[in-house]
Each structure stands twice: as structure tokens, then as C-alpha cells.
């Protein structure tokens, strides 16, 4: 098996359905196709360089950001606009096809995750896999998330940063 597409925590494997391997190109294609994407950012993004990448990506793609845990504080201090929700709260909202979304413009059709605790993100992605058929999920962590629809592969920092850089080129 290709080690890049084994779930980072290998026991996250949950059944026959596995995420597609995403490259920056496919990830961008998903963003491009999406009408109302959302960017969910967890506490591992409180520091650089990740915070900077996120800022750039969000700006490039005009993505509303939801920060989970206490990530809001660092983002706020660094002038990055976001709304805060618990990761389970935002997941709960996302699985409701009638929720109007962060901007109140209508339900999101794509959610892109980065920086959440691996296993809690896996659990949230499982929720969305099963209960949010109206929504695509994408993760751009350096860890392969088999519960997502599409995920970056397992990578080292250097490669990952290149991936993230590419993400902010439209």
C-alpha cells in the first residue's frame, strides 16, 4: 500500500469508503467548483507558518473562516477575521442542509479543514461523511484523513508547505 494514503492514525480506517488523494491542483479544483465553501481552522494553526498560509489561502479564495477551540484569539490578534465555534458545533451545523451558512447566504457545499486535532477531525469528518451528503469535505493537513472526501497525503513539513503555498495561487 502507498504509505501516503494510509490514514495518519492507521486505525481510523472505517470501511470500504476511503478519501481521494488530493493535490493542490485537485483541491483548488474543488474550491473552484464550490459555490459556498467554508474554511475550518483548528488550534494547530495558532502559530506560524500555518497561520500565514491560512490567511493567504482564505484571501485568495474569499473563504469565510471558522476557528475551532481557542484559535480565534490568535487569529483575532493577528487581524485575521473568523467566527469561533466548537469543532463539534460547526460540524453539527454543517450537517444540517437547512443551515444558512456562516454568511447567511445559504448552505455550504464544501468544507476545507486544517489544523484540528487529528482524531477529533476524523470523527467530525465521519459525521459529515454519513450525515451530510449535500457537502464535500477536504482536508489540507499534512496527514491523510480517510474519512474526508478528499485529503492531502501524509507528508513532511517541507513538502506540505509547498502544497500550502500552491493553494494560495489561484
Amino acid at each position, binding site marked *: 500500500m502507498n504509505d501516503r494514503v494510509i490514514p495518519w492514525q492507521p486505525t481510523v480506517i472505517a470501511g470500504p469508503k476511503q478519501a481521494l488523494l488530493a493535490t493542490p491542483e485537485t483541491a483548488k479544483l474543488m474550491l473552484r467548483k464550490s459555490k459556498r465553501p467554508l474554511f475550518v481552522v483548528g488550534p494547530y494553526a495558532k502559530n506560524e507558518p500555518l497561520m500565514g498560509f491560512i490567511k493567504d489561502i482564505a484571501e485568495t479564495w474569499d473563504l469565510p473562516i471558522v476557528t475551532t477551540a481557542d484559535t480565534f484569539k490568535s487569529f483575532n490578534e493577528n487581524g485575521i477575521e473568523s467566527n469561533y465555534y466548537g469543532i*463539534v458545533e460547526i460540524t453539527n451545523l454543517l450537517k444540517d442542509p437547512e443551515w444558512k451558512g456562516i454568511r447567511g447566504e445559504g448552505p455550504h457545499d464544501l468544507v476545507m479543514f486544517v489544523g484540528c486535532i487529528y482524531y477529533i477531525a476524523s470523527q467530525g469528518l465521519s459525521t459529515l461523511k454519513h450525515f451530510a451528503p449535500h457537502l464535500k469535505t477536504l482536508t489540507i493537513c499534512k496527514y491523510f484523513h480517510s474519512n474526508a472526501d478528499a485529503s492531502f497525503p501524509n507528508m513532511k513539513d517541507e513538502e506540505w508547505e509547498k502544497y500550502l503555498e500552491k493553494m494560495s495561487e489561484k
Partner: protein
Amino acid sequence: MTPNSTKPKEFKDDFWKAKDIKFSFGEIIEDDSPVSEDKETFVGPTLKPSATDLRSWDMKLLERYPPFYAPFCDMCCLCTYGKCDLTGKKGACGIDIEAQQGRFALLTCCIGAAAHSAHSRHLLEYLIHKVGPDHPVDFGNNIDIEAPIIRTLIGKAPRTLGDIREAMSYMEEENLHLLSACHTGQEGNHLDFESKALHAGLMDHIGMEIGDISQITALNLPKGDPDTSLIELGIGSIDRDKPVILCIGHNVAPGSGIVDYLEDNDLEDDVEICGICCAAIDITRYNNRAKVVGPISKQLKFLRSGVADVVVVDEQCIRSDVLEEAQKTGTALIATTDKMCLGLPDRTNDEVDSILADILNKQIEGALILDPEKVGEVATKLSLSLSKSRKSLKTLPDMDEIQEEASNCTQCEWCVRVCPNNLPIMDAVSSAGKGDFDVVESLYNNDICYTCGRCEQECPEDIKIMDLMSKVGENNLKNQKFNIRAGRGPIQDVEVRRVGAPIVLGDIPGVIAFVGCTNYPNGGEEVAKMAEEFLKRNYIVVTSGCGAMSIGEYKDEEGKTLYEKYSGEFDARGLVNVGSCVSNSHISGVAIKIANIFAKKPLEGNFEVIADYILNRVGACGVAWGPYSQKAAAIASGVNRWGIPVVLGPHGSKYRRLYLGRPDKEDVWNLNDMRTGKVIKGEPAPEHLLFAAENREEATVAIAKNCLRPTDTNKGRQIKLNHYIDLNKKYFGVIPEDVYKYVRTDKDIPITYKNDVKEILERNNWEPRELVMEPSILDFPEEE
């Protein structure tokens, strides 16, 4: 109404109609108890309720807090039709993923409830055997309401140990019905699975109460004394020069047998008795000279250190490989209950000398001894005999050897990937290989690594990572001495009288209960810090079990533990250790007692009224930071059914089911005002019933918010909002935008934040709301 063996006979004629009785119905039964002033007790509609009897309550709760599922597996593997993939598909039996998750929640709660309750049944029968069925259940003058859960569900208080059996049998019957519903081809609706899971949780609470009142009364454990002894705690507190007996588990019976034997033979000064997990807590409630090694996270660390000459295991939360681990260090092992026999020969009926000889000569790997008194004698004699010969086994390999082994690390990184928390194990090992033990030490401290051992199992080089961890801790024993206040058991009635009003009105901003395991990286310190944060802010902090131990492992700048700084009273700024896992029943118990003693709500048969009271008026919040087992799921479900919200740590997401409110849906929060008969616009208070936070900071704010209740007076609401805003500012840097939802009138606005809050109110088109008098989610009583 499911037929139930134990419904009172008087109900028989109305068997199928009892539902109509409502709680206005009053069956008058004689109460000749010396503990009650009333001559008559009004009995509500739900004596010995079955799951369907309380289903309407559950459906109300679940409408507000619908289950949120995060499947751990896409497949169902429970029957031989399968496995079936439930990803957007139904299984061969017709089940869908939603019902399957509810089913798993029910199964989990049944197992959890069984663990506590079978433990309680064992204890009850053992204690009846020891002191007789007529031994009185009497907690002294300060506690009249000594079994609030049993009173509510069974309709009367047990007067004797033997009386308790009635509640026990009820629990057993209910658990069987609930477990049955997990069978393939039974329940098909997820909400009905959840209703049953909540019932299983409630059964867990009755089981826990049975266990703790039985042991308190028969073993004369502290009966609500707020000022119990401080007990020595920590790996460093164990005297390694003495023979050491280590008890692991939850059942006090064998531990009390050892204590008795030591006392009867004047060996108390000669043998060190200590424990891990709740067995430790309960042994120290029985004898304050016993010591606590620590919570579950210390188990493998301490076993590997080889310090224990004898390990006595009873039940629950014991490593399945404890026999193998004991053998590695030449530690003798005695299994003592039917729950964990470990394949050992049953030597219960053999002579002590013959057992000793066989163990010492390694004829047998250990022994199963089901008689606690005999365990006391065998364990003591073994420890005395082994402690000398084992001197060399009591220390781990020296640092050179350890470094040598660590240097084999190939940096494959699989240790990190299989670590439940992806801790930097690889860094720790590879730097240890180079003689730098700092990373290992940082992982050891505060149980950042709680030594589950998965990394070691995975390591292709067979590096004994847990030995490494244990060894580094050994070098720093003097810093591992702490204390814990011995578990006091129930809350006294007089305390409830004192704090009832301030809690319900909001002057005391909340009651926070830290329960369950602290299996979370740095979990001990995080729990202690949360406790400290709320203690400083005048909340009442209650704790039990591993949580109580972890709180004891934290010292402030002055080197004091929180137990040294805060009193054990159930009052503002009180830090109340109720005891072990089964003592958790006193936490729901005190909420019930507030409804009863302060608000004069009759308990007997009145579950729904009491739970509704608690949900809407008692600003309590449970916190289970590192729970891992089925028991924790059952406790939380029981707590939830009583109307108390619970905040879990991030691993709580792996329970696969939460109960989340939707603050954005206004109608969900409407309340029935029982005083006026009007439907009143409510507020998300509590916002969630079962919530998982991603880190301590998020949790702290969520806890404060979840203490808000509709009955807060303006003053109470100001106090609570003040803490909520304070904490939100501290951890999120801003005043929480949703504060407008909790401001009913101008008078609710905390003075300190007046301007900022008003700005928020304006921004959100706030308008003042009516205050509710008697908030309820129950239906208004039907017209006659």
C-alpha cells in the same frame, strides 16, 4: 408501560393506565422512618419506571438536544448477516447508520451500568455476608435523605443493607430489558435507542448509589464529613523499602481484607499498602494510612517500576495484561473477583500455606482468591516474603542500558502514528538514544504520556519505551509527592439547605463536577487548572475518582495542592472529593436533594419533575476530561437524564454520540411557565447536554456558559454572565457575541461590561424578555 415484576401491588388494577395518573396523583403510603418528619409521602407516577415510562421525558430532552453522531466505523459487525456497510445504505437487517449509532450508545451504556452495578451487587452481598442484612443504613444526624436516587426511583429509602436488594433487583431487571434492545432486529429508531441509553444511564446511577451507600454503611467510611484526612498521594510517596502491596481496580473488598489483616496482626507499620484507581480511593476512605499511587495513567508506569511486591487486582480499568506485566518484575499477582480471573487457578478454598508455597515456588502464575479475608492474609504474607528477594527487581535497568536500547531507534515514526495523541515519542526515544532524556521527562511529567503502551507494541525494534518512561520518572521521585482529601461520601442535608437558594438563584455561579479518568495528555494538570479557575471564582467544585487524584497531583506556586488551599465543604470555593466512581451518585444525588430539601419537591416516583427541576434551575455542569470507558458513557448519560449538562475532553468525541443544542433555533428553547401557564421565550441554558471540547480553553468557557439557568435572578445572571464574559475574554480575547441571548432585561447585564454588552445587544436587535417563574419543559398539566 412495560410489565415490571416489581411495580407495587397497589398499581395492579391500574396496570395499563398508570400513565394517566400524572404526578398530581398521590398514593399515600406510611412512612414510619425516623429520618423523615412527614407522616405521609406523596408518590408520583413513576415508581420503578421502565424505559417506556420515562420515554416522554427523554423525547423532550432529545428534541432540545438531538443526538450528534460521529461513527467510529462505517460498518456493523454485530451479526453474521454482515459485516454491512452503512455508508448511505441500510444493513441486511434494515438498520441505518443513525440507528446503529444509537444502538451502540445503548450498548455502551448498558456495559457501563453493568460494570458499576455488578460491582455494587458483589459488594452488597459480600457486606451482607459480613455484617448481616439487618445492618442499618444510617448516615447520622446530618443526612436524612441518604439515598436520593433510590428514593426517587424505588419510592422509599432503604433502612437496612438487606433493603437495598430491592433497588438492585430493579436495576438488574431493567438492564436486561435494555441490553435486549441491542439485539439484532429489535429497536429501529435512533431516538428510541437514545431514550433507552438514557435509561441505562439512570440505572447506572442507581447502581452506583447502591455500591457507595453499602460500603459507607457497612465499612463505616466517612459519612459526609467535609473535613476528612489528607491522604498521601504520588509515586514518590510510596516507601520502597517496605514490602509493598498494590491494589488496582475499584472494589474495596479485597483491599479492606488486607487492611484488616494488617491491623489485626500489628503489621500496619511494616507493610505499605497502596492503590491505583478507585480501589485506592476507597481503601483510603477505609483506612487513612493507605496511600494512593495515582490515577489510571500511572498503572503501567508503576507496574514497570517493579516497586510492588504483590499486585492485588479486583475489577474495572485494570490492564488486561497485568499478569504478564507483573511477571516481568517478579511481582506476585492475586485476582479477587469473578470479573477478572485471568485464567488463574481458583484457590479460594485452599489453605493459605499451600497457596503461598505454590506462588513462591512458581508452581502457579498467581492465584484467584474470591474470599477477601483470605486475600488479606495471602497478600500480606507474600509481600513480606517477596520484598527481600525482590530487591534487585525493584529498580529498572540503569540509564546506560536504557540509552543503549533507545539508540536502536530507526525513526520510522510509527510510534507517533499509533499514539492516541500523536505525542513526539520518536523524538523522545531517539534523543534518549543520544543521552538526552529531556523529551522523555517532559512526556513523563503530568502524564502527558499516560502510558497506554501502544508505541511499545508497535516498535519494530522492540524498544521498551515504557521502561524508558518509567525509569526517567524513577529519577525524580521526590517531586512526585502530593496529597488528596479522602472521599467524604454524600453531601449533608444542612449543606444543601445552605446552598440550595444561592445555587438556584445564581448567587453561587455553578457547581462543577470533575469526574472520570484523566487519560488526556497533561490531563491531570488541565483538570486541576480548570478546578482552580472555578474555585477562585466562587463556584462549588466537586470531584471523584481519578479526577480527584489528578487534582491532588497539582501544586500551585506556593507548592500547595488545591486540597490544602480549599475546604472540603459543599459551598462556594469548596473542593469536595466525594470518593470513588460509585460516589458519583452523590453528585446527581445532591442535585436531587436541592430539589427535595430546598424546593420541597417530593422525590418518590417523581423522576420527571425532579429532572425537569434540575435541568431548569440547578446550575451544575459535569466535566469528564479524559474518560475512556463505557462506565463514563453511562455516568454521563445518567447525569444528562437528570438534567445536568456534561463537557467532555476531545477524546470524548470517540464516544461517537453527543447531545448538542442549536442556539440558532429559537423555538427549541421555549419554556412552559408552570406558575402562569404561559409559554415563555427561553434561552439556550444549558446550551448543550453533552459536548466535547477540543482543548482546555474552549472547555473552560463552555463550562461557565453551561451553568446558566432560566431561574437565575437578575443578580445571579449578572454574576454568571460576568464569569462567562471574563473567561471568554481571557481565552478568546473578546466578549462573546451570544451574550445577547442570555440577557433577559437590562438588569441581567454585568456592570463591569455594561457598555460592551449594550453594544452587542444593539447589534443583535435585542429586546427585553419576560422572566420565567417556574420554568419547565414538561407539558402543562391536563385539564380535569
